[in-house]
């Protein structure tokens, strides 16, 4: 059993889904309410990781963070080391890779909110940020939870991008999916089986718990 790999995957997925919630909320808001005529271009870019092979995305991230690119050089100046084959590089790549999984459910939840409620809040003297916190977020909580869970699960399961950007450094970039791949390559089927099972049970439990929180099966009175 490769516990360090499991721990690394959980850490990566937690950090990535939290960051995605923070940057996904404003992006989703803009996508749901902007009337800019070229908005479809932004929508297409946000959705790109859904269709792009992970290796293609990983390749471009590797190029972008390499020491020959301005981003890579700036990072080296700031931190003293490069981004490729590091945990930070993995976080960056995973954020891009899971972006549509966070943004799309949130944006569709926002789009379903009655604009009248937002106007009503304004007539009641509420500044936009307060309307967002008190009206928009509570009414789209299911979409936000779904976006968080999907980006978490998607990050846990990613393989190609990790391999391209992070490689296979134990304790640094060796995530659980890489570990399983490694074990299978070395004919350690029993070990691969346990690791895979742990991942399966964990993922299923998290999803069940989250959907339970959203649907509240114990609160029978609130069912329609």
């Amino acid at each position: 059993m490769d516990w360090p790999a499991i721990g690394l995957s959980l850490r990566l997925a937690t950090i990535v889904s939290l960051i995605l919630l923070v940057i996904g909320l404003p992006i989703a808001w803009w996508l749901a309410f902007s009337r800019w005529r070229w908005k479809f271009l932004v929508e297409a870019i946000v959705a790109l990781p859904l269709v792009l092979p992970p290796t293609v995305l990983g390749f471009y991230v590797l190029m972008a963070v390499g020491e020959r690119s301005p981003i890579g050089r700036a990072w080296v100046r700031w931190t003293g080391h490069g981004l490729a084959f590091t945990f930070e590089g993995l976080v960056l790549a995973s954020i891009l890779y899971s972006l549509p999984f966070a943004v799309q459910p949130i944006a569709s939840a926002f789009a379903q909110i009655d604009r009248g409620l937002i106007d009503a809040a304004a007539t009641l003297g509420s500044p936009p940020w307060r309307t967002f916190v008190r009206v928009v977020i509570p009414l789209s909580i299911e979409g936000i939870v779904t976006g968080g869970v999907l980006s978490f699960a998607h990050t846990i399961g990613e393989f190609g991008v990790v391999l391209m950007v992070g490689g296979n450094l134990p304790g640094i970039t060796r995530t659980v999916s890489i570990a399983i791949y490694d074990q299978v390559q070395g004919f350690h089927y029993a070990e691969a089986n346990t690791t895979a099972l742990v991942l399966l049970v964990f993922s299923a439990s998290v999803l069940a718990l989250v959907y339970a929180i959203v649907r509240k099966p114990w609160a029978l009175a609130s069912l329609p």
Partner: protein
Amino acid sequence: MSLAASIRAALSPQFTLDVRCSIAPGITMVFGASGSGKTTMLKCLAGLHRPDAGTIAIDEQVIFDAGRGIDIPVRRRGLGYVFQHLALFPHMTVERNLHFGLASLDPAARRARTASIADSFRIAHLLSRKPSEISGGERQRTALARSLVTDPRFLLLDEPLSALDHATQSRIIEDLRAWNAARGIPILYVTHSHREVFALGEHVLVLERGRILAEGSPQEVLDAPAHESVARMAGFENILDATVMVANTDGGTMTCRLAESSAELEAPLTRAQPGTRVRIAIRAGDILLSIGEPRGLSARNVLDGTIAAIQRKGATVIVMVRAASTFEVHITPRALEALRLAAGMHVWIVIKTHSCRIVSAAPEL
């Protein structure tokens, strides 16, 4: 307090809202068909839609002036707005809905204000319920209370009561009047129902295609409509083309011949000269129906014809009578039974001179 506005907002190449009005304290009805610009007018006053030109002022304070670049945001205009679909926050209780506009107050003051407004609008027993758990009338009361708990300087109501029965409507309006008696804020009440205008308003603005077509008391504007379109909205079901034949200046009447027939109607005297074409508006409820030829009546207009169709609509029976022109006549279900009316029957219709209103065609806008 009073509200003065002069605004122009082009919504599409075909539609421009262009209104100039001064709204006194009390209830002013804004009456118009759907698409006449009523809701847009409210949104401009509220700041939810930005007019292209003009000014809006509440008392001495200018809240919008396109020329000087003044545009106070909605949240600082100090207004109350009840939306057509109410827009109650579905995830909050009635109490939290009422609290929403009182964020700047401390909790004790907030509770005191909420309790007092809930009392005035009879929703004190509903404070812990969600909007989905109360009745339609209770939701309307909650929406009204929520918009008034902030002590607004003017109130905008977008067809707030159209979904309610008449009795509930007038009880809610009485509570609103009582609340406003001490405050005297201008209240704009948008409706497309002429019944509501008569029942609820002190003053009415008639809006058509983005312009104010007429203004005055409901009686002045809707009982004696000057324009055909107002007559239609005001519930004049029969609007007939006619030509003035003779003006009986002494008797205060004039004789008009209906278009494409030799039948004549006597109508009140207007300034229309003999030979001019006019339109005569008659409410379907103002026409009498008789199965025998009526004699010895004071009513001057008796026409005979046949029943083309009979249709029941709630408590009203609509009888279409072909007599010179086709007349729509409203009678009660009991009258229908007593007279045993049927399609094809020969009948007489009786119209008093003063039930005939001379209206002009819609003015060129």
